[in-house]
């Protein structure tokens, strides 16, 4: 029998719908694969009994002719999404035993449409990181290795469990979240596809908050089509999220394979940063050639405030985080470390419960919001954010349909290799992705080829607000032209 875990989500969906395979069969195959892949540390909680129960219920619905669009398809859920009755930790010690009494809106929509949960996926603590190394459960090991080397590499972050699990065929697709690049950078590092939709497209309700004006939910999956299928179920208006946008969700899958002839694609000259490797430069050129060959017009555009996006982000995101994470005080949930009075109880609890990177970001955020510094840092950063958004608006007003950039400045790096002495070294990973969050736009990362060391490299397409469909059409062109990237070998099992 063929290995069911190798199927794409679309192939599995069609096979389940045609009753060639049952949900129970495919779910069992994944439960088994998840168990064998423990050396990757992609799952922080496996829920095999729940998965098999959900699969059984799916098979019953299929038999009754009541199948939903994701009926019987096993998915992995980033541990930032609250799942009712199933431990949700944000991969932090401070809520290490938290069992939600509610379900996030996005996951509830996946279950509504028939999907099956395999378990909770590892991520950087509170999604703060670009390598999955800040997780309280330890780093995720990428299924990828450099040619001729068995050095352990990072799967990117913060959605490192999601990207590794999709690349390793231990789920059909995964939920992820993106605050500065946390869907697109891990997708690029693992040869998978990930889309951060427009701000407001997916509900943030029930997703552990990092920086509320930047956070968006989205999928990571094997193909562009799989992303389109998942986003249709994840997106939609939710009265429980005040920034959720009330507009209909298109059938994104229809955009996959649509012609891109005559579309105008912008190449922003400011993304040609100092010290860009020849390999990334060549990948970018290759991407433009693929789109041109499909009939798109390539034009140079200018986004003058690009270089200020990352420093402005490192004011806005920590500021919002310091406010959002004030709720973890040892009173309503999580661990409590006693002190001589209530203030020292708070201080001891938060020192013990938060990891190093989270403490650092809360402190930066506290500083930039403190009396006397608020205008100099926070207000200035929000003004620069306006300029960044205006840059994009000007380009789109020229008739540009989407913008093509590299997804990351390099291929995946080794565990323990970056950010040891200087936190900024790690932050630079998000230099190409963070502008998109600052402007609230949609962005997709699609594999474009392999590095000389045999590792995946990703391209990013940035779209107009709420025009995810164009990104799926263009992404499909790149996927078809570059060819799907297959994992070299299953060394962990």
């Amino acid at each position, binding site marked *: 029998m063929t290995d069911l875990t190798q199927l794409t989500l679309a192939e599995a969906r069609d096979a389940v719908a045609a009753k060639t395979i049952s949900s129970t069969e495919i779910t069992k195959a994944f439960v088994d694969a998840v168990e064998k892949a423990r050396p990757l540390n992609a799952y922080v909680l496996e829920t095999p009994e729940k998965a098999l129960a959900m699969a059984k219920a799916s098979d019953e619905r299929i038999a009754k002719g009541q199948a939903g669009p994701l009926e019987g398809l096993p998915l992995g859920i980033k541990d930032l999404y609250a799942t009712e009755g199933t431990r949700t930790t944000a991969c932090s010690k401070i809520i290490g035993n938290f*069992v939600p*009494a509610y379900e996030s809106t996005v996951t509830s929509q996946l279950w509504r449409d028939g999907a099956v949960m395999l378990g909770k996926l590892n991520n950087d603590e509170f999604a703060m990181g670009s390598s999955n190394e800040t997780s309280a459960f330890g780093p995720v090991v990428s299924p990828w290795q450099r040619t001729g080397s068995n050095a352990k590499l990072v799967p990117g972050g913060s959605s490192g469990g999601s990207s590794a699990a999709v690349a390793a065929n231990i789920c059909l697709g995964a939920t992820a979240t993106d605050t500065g690049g946390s869907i697109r950078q891990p997708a690029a590092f693992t040869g998978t596809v990930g889309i951060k939709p427009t701000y407001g497209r997916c509900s943030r309700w029930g997703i552990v908050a990092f920086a509320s004006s*930047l956070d968006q939910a989205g999928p990571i999956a094997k193909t562009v089509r799989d992303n389109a299928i998942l986003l249709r179920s994840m997106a939609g208006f939710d009265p429980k999220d005040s920034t959720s946008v009330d507009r209909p969700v298109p059938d994104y899958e229809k955009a996959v394979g649509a012609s891109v002839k005559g579309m105008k694609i912008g190449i922003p000259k400011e993304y040609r940063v100092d010290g860009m490797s020849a390999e990334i430069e060549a990948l970018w050129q290759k991407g433009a050639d693929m789109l041109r060959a499909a009939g798109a017009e390539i034009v140079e555009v200018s986004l003058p405030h690009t*270089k200020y996006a990352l420093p402005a982000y490192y004011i806005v995101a920590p500021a919002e985080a310091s406010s959002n994470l004030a709720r973890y005080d040892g009173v309503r949930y999580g661990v409590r470390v006693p002190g001589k009075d209530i203030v020292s*109880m708070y201080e001891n609890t938060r020192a013990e419960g938060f990891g190093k990177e989270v403490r650092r970001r809360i402190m930066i955020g506290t500083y930039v919001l*403190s009396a006397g510094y608020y205008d100099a840092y926070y207000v*200035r950063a929000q003004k*620069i954010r*306006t300029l960044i958004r205006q840059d994009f608006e000007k380009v789109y007003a020229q008739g540009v349909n989407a913008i093509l950039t590299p997804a990351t400045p390099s291929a995946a790096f080794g565990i323990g290799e970056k950010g040891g002495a200087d936190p900024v070294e790690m932050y630079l990973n998000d230099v190409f992705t963070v502008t998109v969050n600052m402007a609230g736009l949609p962005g997709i990362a699609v594999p474009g080829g392999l590095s000389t060391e045999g590792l995946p490299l990703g391209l990013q397409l940035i779209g107009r607000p709420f025009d995810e469909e164009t990104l799926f059409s263009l992404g499909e062109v790149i996927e078809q032209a570059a060819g799907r990237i297959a994992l070299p070998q299953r060394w962990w099992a």
Partner: protein
Amino acid sequence: MSVDSATVRRIAHLARISVNDDEIAPLQNELNAILAFVEQLNEVDVANVEPMTSVTPMQLRQREDKVTDGHYPNKIVGNAPLTEDNYFLVPKVVE
């Protein structure tokens, strides 16, 4: 701008995070590295630029002021480290 060790202690206290003496110097270096990185924002002319207050241009929705949820105190306190009769317990705050 850069921070000195007294400022690091003050920020930590404002953030309600206790820090040991041996953590101060490394934290000071890390915070200063980040502050040096964001320093470049001062090059940008932001005169007459409005700060972004809404990511998508939209009015925040309002809803009717009525109770729509609740009546499950057991669930609310279910994850708390210390409770009694569905109240959260905290150390004494008023003498």
